[in-house]
């Protein structure tokens, strides 16, 4: 790489991409933190420690802790199914996996409303059982499961197709059973796809606004997730508060990426 001298054109292009990244990616992120800290560290922590904001952070993290493991397992199973077996309707299943990523989140929210709302399809049944789904944290978890369902499978399907089944067949022919093959051959092969899928799922769960806003009922301190809380604070003219809340969301995102990168670095050693 470094042996061939770079042309002036290449240098200009590299400089341009750095400048672009700085303008498009770094500046907004830096702005969030500078706005959040504009009134000092004390005001910043006071804004974050407001009970409603604290609860929004808690709800968002809990939702992610429930949704990400489920969708990692389900996504891996789906990817396994469509890449390791041949069956009727396979292409249809692949298309269905993609569906939540293809529809607008607001549509997902409205669909859930029509399913679980009192006037919805399952509403009368749920009401007679005394179960409340809509406008509760449960609805937020369900709709988050839906919108983030495709991310792990989307990462894994192309990867597993490309890798083929040779390693696994070799393991089986050497006497491994199904679980041994999965733990020692399949999983190590797909682990980066899995990690990346989990990172994407996590980012989407924590950042989801549209679908969640339909099903949440936005009860302060109960069903407001972090993105909803940021929007609410912003509309309350509480600019410092909304940027403080936004900075926690940004911070979580940065931490996830740092975690992923350090995992990669540790792996390479």
């Amino acid at each position: 790489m470094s042996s061939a001298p770079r042309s002036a054109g290449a240098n200009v292009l590299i400089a341009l991409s750095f400048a672009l990244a700085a303008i498009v990616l770094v500046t907004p992120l830096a702005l969030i933190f500078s706005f959040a800290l504009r009134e000092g560290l004390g005001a910043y922590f006071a804004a974050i420690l407001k009970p409603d904001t604290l609860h929004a952070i808690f709800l968002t993290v809990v939702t992610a802790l429930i949704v990400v493991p489920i969708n990692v397992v389900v996504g891996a199973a789906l990817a396994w199914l469509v890449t390791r077996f041949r069956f009727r309707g396979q292409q249809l299943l692949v298309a269905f996996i993609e569906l939540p990523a293809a529809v607008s989140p607001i549509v997902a929210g409205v669909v859930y409303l029509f399913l679980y709302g009192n006037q919805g399809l399952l509403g009368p049944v749920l009401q007679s059982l005394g179960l409340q789904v809509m406008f509760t944290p449960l609805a937020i978890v369900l709709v988050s499961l839906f919108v983030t369902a495709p991310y792990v499978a989307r990462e894994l399907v192309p990867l597993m197709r490309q890798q083929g089944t040779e390693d696994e067949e070799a393991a089986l022919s050497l006497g491994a059973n199904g679980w041994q093959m999965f733990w020692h051959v399949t999983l190590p092969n797909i682990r980066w796809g899995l990690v990346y899928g989990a990172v994407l799922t996590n980012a989407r769960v924590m950042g989801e606004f549209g679908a969640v806003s339909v099903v949440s009922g936005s009860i302060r301190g109960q069903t407001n997730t972090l993105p909803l809380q940021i929007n609410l604070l912003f509309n309350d003219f509480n600019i410092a508060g909304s940027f403080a809340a936004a900075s926690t969301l940004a911070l979580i995102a940065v931490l996830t990426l740092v975690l992923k990168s350090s995992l990669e670095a540790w792996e390479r050693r």
Partner: protein
Amino acid sequence: MNKLLLSAVAALALVSSPVLAQPTDILNASYDIARELFEAENAAYAATGATVTVNQSHAGSSAQARAVLEGLQADVVTFNQVTDIQKLVDGGYVTADWTSEFPHNAAPFYSFPSFLVRSGNPKAIKDWGDLAAEGVQVIFPNPKTSGNGRYTYLAARAWATEAYAGDEAKIEELLTKLFANVPVFETGGRAATTAFTERELGDVLVTFEAETLAVVKQLGADKYEAVVPSVSFLSEFPVAVVDKVVDARGSRDIAKAYLDFLFTPEGQEVAAANFHRPQDETVAAAHAATFPAIRLVTVEDAFGGWDKVAADHFADGGLLDKVFVNQ
């Protein structure tokens, strides 16, 4: 792992299912721009020694009515439109004679569409006719989605009906010009306010007087001025106990006690301090400096009641659609 997940989901379901014995909290589903008002009302209510926690949910008044119909467990609703409570009556959630359960037709406070202009009032906007002038940009929320916007439409029409002595062609011409002066219709009252203040769109914001005075206080009298027109449309903010929810939760007493508080002198004082005009005459007199005199027309006098307004003006193809050109 799966057991863990199951129990987590079960725990969530438990948390979210209605508590049957002795609830100590109620949910108030309220309209968009009432956030600061109810934050203050709830603090004042707690100061009276009430041990009930009042949770708040805010969105457009009509959107909240829909949410309650879909199962939002609101013990009380505090809306900005009678028609939105009517939807709950139609759905069997609120008793038909809800207006007689509290004084003043169950409306503890009121406001009316008024103007907010930029400092110095550069376009010299004084009354409804000025909003239709050429080169004036007007911001108010979409009357199709916002009660606030519907009040604005009715206020402008009430003014025009008087100004043109009921000449329908002239009234519609004025309203068409007014609507054409709106560069963007936001869906809710607060979004219209942020469009005017944060995005600096428009020369005049038309919204409830309560919102105009709150903006002047929050963002500075050096930046904005509240202008009160010669006449406007009485906008009563009704409250109701959601019977279906309180009966299921056993929270009727605490829900009613909370709404009763809004009509007490203490509750009225908080409303006035947050720029909502109180019904209590003593409290109103004490805040006379904040609230200039204005002539308000009622829906009964000017339009023959809410049912008639809904049928004549807001139904598809009604009078609103005739003047709402760039929707």
